[in-house]
């Protein structure tokens, strides 16, 4: 047995993840008692379930809209809805969310207007919402880069005495990037109030986790930065909510960052453009179906008397309504003024951009005249 060595501020034991991912409601919907984490309140669990049902509906609606040519691309979080919801529902209004391209559901759950959320994937602009209004950063495409921005927002919050905590999302693949390393190190050194939530969905496009890392787990990376690493069942909303909430409280209390690894699975292909059959067996996917975050939650809530068919219908109705809003919104074509291309590059367009804008305007005028 190895003694628990306290070299830095935290002991080794406090930084290493537990042997098994934290799980509060198991695959069969049965509650699992846990020494460290209490089950979230009934209200929270119902809110999570509601959000997941809507999220699933939106995920599947978006995949359909891609097939219909209304969206350029959609990286679905089908199967990862527990991560999407838990990460957002644990945040306060003063907090920030840093999502990736796959975290559309989290962005929506944070209250961002549905159609504003779809601007990137629809291709009408690079990002459609005002990040400062919702405290949601633009969805990041270059992997792991946003983790550093998250640290910056968090450290600026500390300097300004704000009580803000920042939740930064990334995937398992992104943990290999240099920016992941630099972000975790900066967060720890500046004791920044950040929670890093890695959605380990086992794949980075076609590359399985075991080709991404030889670490015992991604959460084992935390000790290398001097922060706690926690593994959690990423399909268990309750466990995620409990773990993320605790990590956020700890950050808010000035105790610095935490790395949370959520074990989940990417049920669909990477995006519609991807062909998952080239690199994984359908049998693997099939194995994960029973672990679905919605099913187990539904069982739990039903067994606990928190969900009846009326409530279920109500939630489904809401999900359908939101999907309809999305569908209708996306089926309407937007009129875009190409002049916008030059408007926001600088606060005041440079003389060069003014010339170029004039050139385009002239072209369009002549086109119209024809």
């Amino acid at each position, binding site marked *: 047995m190895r003694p628990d060595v306290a070299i830095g501020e935290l002991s080794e034991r406090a930084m290493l993840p537990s042997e098994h991912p934290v799980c509060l409601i198991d695959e069969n919907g049965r509650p699992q008692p846990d020494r460290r984490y209490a089950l979230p309140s009934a209200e929270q669990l119902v809110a999570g379930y509601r959000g997941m049902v809507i999220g699933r509906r939106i995920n599947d609606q978006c995949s359909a809209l891609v097939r219909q040519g209304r969206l350029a691309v959609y990286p679905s979080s089908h199967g990862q809805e527990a991560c999407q919801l838990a990460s957002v529902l644990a945040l306060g209004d003063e907090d920030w969310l840093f999502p990736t391209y796959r975290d559309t559901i989290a962005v929506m759950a944070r209250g961002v207007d549905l159609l504003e959320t779809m601007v990137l994937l629809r291709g009408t602009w*690079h990002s459609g919402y005002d990040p400062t209004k919702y405290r949601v950063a633009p969805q990041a*495409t*270059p992997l792991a880069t946003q983790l550093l921005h998250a640290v910056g927002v968090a450290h600026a919050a500390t300097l300004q005495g704000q009580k803000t905590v920042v939740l930064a999302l990334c995937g398992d693949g992104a943990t290999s990037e240099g920016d992941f390393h630099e972000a975790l190190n900066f967060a720890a050194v500046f004791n920044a109030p950040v929670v890093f939530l890695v959605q380990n969905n086992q794949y980075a*496009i076609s590359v399985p986790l075991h080709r*991404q890392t030889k670490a015992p787990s991604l959460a084992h990376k935390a000790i290398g930065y001097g922060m706690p690493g926690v593994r959690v069942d990423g399909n268990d909303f309750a466990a995620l909510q409990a773990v993320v909430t605790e990590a956020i409280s700890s950050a808010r209390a000035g105790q610095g960052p935490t790395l949370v690894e959520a074990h989940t699975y990417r049920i669909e292909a990477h995006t519609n453009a991807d062909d998952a059959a080239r*690199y994984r067996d359908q049998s693997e996917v099939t194995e994960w179906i029973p672990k679905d975050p919605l099913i187990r939650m539904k069982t739990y809530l039903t067994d606990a008397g928190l969900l009846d068919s009326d409530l279920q219908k109500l939630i489904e109705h809401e999900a359908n309504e939101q999907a309809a809003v999305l569908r209708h919104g996306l089926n309407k074509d937007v009129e875009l003024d190409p002049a916008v291309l*030059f408007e926001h590059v600088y606060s005041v367009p440079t003389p*060069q*951009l003014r010339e170029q804008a004039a050139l*385009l305007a002239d072209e369009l005028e002549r086109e119209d005249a024809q």
Partner: protein
Amino acid sequence: MTMVDSATHSVSGISASVPETLSMAQAINRALGDAMQEDERVLMFGEDVGALGGVFRITDGLTERFGDKRCFDTPLAESGIVGMAVGMAMNGMRPVVEMQFDAFAYPAFEQVVSHVAKMANRTQGAVRLPIVIRIPYGGGIGGVEHHCDSSEAYYAHTPGLTVVAPATPSDAYGLMREAIAFPDPVVFLEPKKLYWSKESVDLTAPVPPIGRAVVRRAGTDATLICYGTSVPVALEAAEAAESEGRSLQVVDMRSITPFDDETVCAAVESTGRAVVIAEASGFASVASEISARISERCFHSLASPVKRVTGFDIPFAPPKLERYHLPSVNRILDAVDDLQWED
């Protein structure tokens, strides 16, 4: 100092000599396969290039054919990919690496600029790095941000790199074979939007070497200079101009560095007018270089200032607006119209 020019040489292909209709994607795939077949020091690695065959399927079938020691996936880290390639080349291999999209090569920028480009010079030629860095580049495919950058200027400005951009399947095959056989590092820019363009290709036919431009279309009134993504647009513009009675010559650079001054100057001097066309933002770009060179070297032959038709100085446009950003046939024709024709 050896100052001799590398002579044109035919690349002895392994693929059969019967012309085949190939897309550019297939042609590059064939070039990789043939090179790996011929020389077992040639390796292919990067993100998703193994089982998946790359997001554009350029490496399709290579792992199956050569095993996962020769064509393999790496962890998701571009600096890592290029940095590892440097070491592998130091130890006798000829790595070809794929950057998944143009903008995702930026994390590797330091490795490219401070190591790939400088190692041979640093070691007085003792260590040369025969690395090919494949970068699918440019727009025109409705891609979202970070997926459509034309980043050639960053590389072309960096001494020690050789930068090529094919515009046809034949050139893609030939230049890739050349690039892999080249003793120095090559940044190989693959015009994404032309991946699916097809041509009948004789894989055994010799192609002009790296450093040599070609005149793609003869013409007498003005010269259009282009490379990679902008070649088909230039050709289309020349076609359209012909119907309006103007004869435009089209020069495809093929290599950005080394630059083929000879072909370009001869072409421009023959017409006295020039338009440079490139998708990248124009400021401090390869188009600037070409325009400046022509103005400096062909000054007295020029009947009009050189014009540039380039991407605007803005981040690449979102999918629904990209057509306004990209050099179009009309914009090229407008530029040609502006070449101070005395009627």
